């Protein structure tokens, strides 16, 4: 009974929060000067007043703010995210087309950054003042401070132009014929550079955090006991200390997830990765309110 009560209030608040997010963002979009009719005119190389008025009438942009907000919320409550003005498509299908690419990239990059970060962190924690440790710190901070655009282009020049190992852009080679395995391999090849670029930002966080937490754990009593038992240093570090040292890293991973998503916007642009990030970015530039709100709705529901 109690659990049920808690769950229903939670859900109630979650819905309320979602609506608040939508209303707030709708208002913000409305307050910004210009609307999607301007960007549609831009895509057409200019349009006369009659055409502009026609576009605004088609999309209900000529109605008052409250009427527009009301009709939007009404549709959302009926699980209809509306129609993208700019892309001429239902928002839900637009998002569902792009979501898998972003999730694939974000999850892979997150796992990759965490794995490599922890390995580097542990290595440097074992000899905190050794050359290797300083080298790890350097690499991590370099990745953290270099702009994503720059890292991306640099990797492209290195590994797509000079040594032609990886493709430049996109998620798949559409001219390729073949079965599932060939296609999967093709997507993996396309993923390598964007994944490295995206994870480079987070590598520093994970490696610094796991280094600090590992050093702390290595100094604790039970590690000393384990060493006293006569276990080798290897066993102590990887069997005993690592388990405990990992818990702050896992917590950070959860918190960092939204940051990875926002980092994905830039990475997707450089590598022409057909994900949600580029869609969000372009819809904001295009003032395509239904698409932006749809993406916000999806991402806030996920969180």
């Amino acid at each position, binding site marked *: 009974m109690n659990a049920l009560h808690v769950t229903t209030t939670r859900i109630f608040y979650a819905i309320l929060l979602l609506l608040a997010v939508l209303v707030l963002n709708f208002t913000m979009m409305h307050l910004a*000067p210009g609307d999607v009719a301007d960007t549609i005119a831009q895509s057409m*190389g200019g349009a006369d007043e009659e055409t502009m008025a026609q576009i605004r009438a088609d999309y209900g942009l000529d109605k008052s703010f409250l009427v527009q907000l009301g009709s939007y919320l009404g549709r959302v409550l009926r699980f209809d995210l509306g129609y993208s003005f700019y892309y001429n498509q239902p928002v839900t299908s637009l998002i569902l087309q792009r979501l898998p690419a972003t999730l694939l990239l974000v999850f892979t990059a997150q796992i990759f950054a965490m794995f490599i970060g922890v390995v580097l962190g542990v290595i440097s924690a074992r000899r905190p003042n050794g050359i290797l440790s300083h080298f790890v710190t350097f690499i991590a901070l370099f990745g953290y401070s270099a702009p994503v655009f720059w890292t991306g282009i640099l990797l492209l020049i290195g590994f*797509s132009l000079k040594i032609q190992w990886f493709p430049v*852009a996109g998620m798949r080679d559409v001219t390729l014929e073949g079965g599932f395995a060939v296609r999967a391999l093709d997507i993996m090849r396309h993923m390598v550079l964007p994944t490295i670029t995206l994870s480079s930002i987070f590598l520093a966080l994970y490696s610094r955090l796991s280094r600090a937490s590992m050093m702390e754990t290595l100094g604790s009593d039970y590690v000393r006991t384990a060493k006293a038992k006569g276990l080798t240093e290897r066993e102590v570090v990887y069997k005993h200390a690592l388990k405990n040292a990992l818990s702050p890293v896992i917590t950070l991973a959860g918190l960092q997830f939204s940051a990875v998503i926002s980092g994905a916007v830039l990475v997707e642009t450089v590598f022409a990765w057909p994900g949600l990030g580029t869609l969000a970015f372009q819809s904001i530039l295009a003032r395509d309110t239904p698409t932006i709100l749809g993406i916000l709705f999806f991402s806030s529901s996920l969180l």
Partner: protein
Amino acid sequence: MKHSTKNLVAATLIAVCAAGTGWAQDTPKAGGTLVVALPGGTPRVLNPAVQSGTATGMPGSQLFASPLRYDEDWTPKPYLAKSWEVSDDGLKVTLHLQENATFHDGVPITSEDVAFSVDVIKKYHPFKSMFAPVESVDTPDEHTAVLNLTSPHPALMLAMSGQLMAIIPKHIYGDGQDPKNHPRNNQDVVGSGPFKLVEFKPGEHVILERYDGYWEEGLPYLDRIVARIINDSSARAIALQNGEIQLSTFEMEPTTINRLQSDENLTVTKEGYGGIGAIDWLAMNTTRGPLQDVRVRQAIAYAIDKNFILKALMRGTAVEAKTGIHPDSPLYNPEVEAYEVDLDKANALLDEAGFPLENGKRFELNIELPGFPGYKAQTEYIKAALSKVGIDVTVRAHPDFPTWARVMGNMEFDLSMDSVYNWGDPVIGVNRTYLSSNIGKGVWSNTQGYANARVDEILAAAATEMDAEKRKALYSEFQEIVAEEVPIYFINAVPQHSVYSNKVGNPPQGIWASSSPMDKIYLKD
């Protein structure tokens, strides 16, 4: 400086010679897949009858054919219309269609479809001036369409080419749904052009395939065109260099162009952009403050060193533009006042206009920095150049296009960099900037508030003048007047370039770049 110019000339000559001999000797070969970059990102709609712009133009011109096509010399050539006549009074234009032409579903293309397409374009295309004088279309037989005009309309010829007049199937779009938002604009497209649609994935690609029933025997040469959407210009350049894409059009970033020019596997050319006719200029609001005085506007023109912009900022990639008509156009008049930089003259004009120098300053102006890339350097330079003659300029940066467009459309600006496209005939893309009847009607209207009765008169006369020489003389006079009164300081043709692999034969040239049919493009071995 001298050296670099010489080298540039030499490089261009070599490129021209190489290009000339390159494709003249080869015989076109059928087959293969051409991978191109889709210019301008994801198109909203693939149907050019209801949407303009270069993003729609590239796939749209492959999916849909127009009655005419244009070669490099601005001469109309037969396309879907195998011949055409204009009556002596200019009021009847008769098109004779290819007799064996069919839509992608096999249905014959008839004069009914031409009449229907004109109707849709008149109603829904943003460029209303293209077909405004077309009163009705007669269809005496299946393959003859007669356009009846209320007044002679020489602009019609260019309006019937490129992406401007897509012939669309009446049996698909005439079903009563709004053609602007018709579901068949993006999916299951049934077109009239050399290629049909396989797949359109917004944000990713448009895949086109050879239409086997195309009316011209043996064409198109290519089996497939994959148009990929790669928004970042550096990534696009790398993809061209490593061969992932073989053709990209509308490349306009000077550093990228120069880098690609040094790649021996690629050809870089600015040929083919006269029709689109994009020009970079400095717009001046002639209705506000000191800018109302023509002497102040002339002084600004004399204070700016155009050569610095062309050489240092555009890095030699752009051609000077002295007027609002693109330098490639046969109507361009290069014999107008060019405003060679002259600070003494600028200062004298400002003194004469009643703005004396006090404490090193005459007056203040704002300059808007548009919310789209490419104008930061020019804007900063203009600010610095004008401070030398005592004009204190404040840069107002805009985060995105709509914000800037509002300020321009409402004429709440003093100065701003802008680029405006000719779209073929001056009637379509030039008049809108100068006609006093079009003042302050949104972005890319007459945002300068420019009004000159003689200019209005000339533009009206030229719009209906069927004699080519007389028409050219009218536009020449128009360009002289505008250059004299400087509502706009013209800088350069936008350095739009096509970049393609040396394996590509017959790359798109003509006057419409990638907004022209790619039926004759082929891939060499």
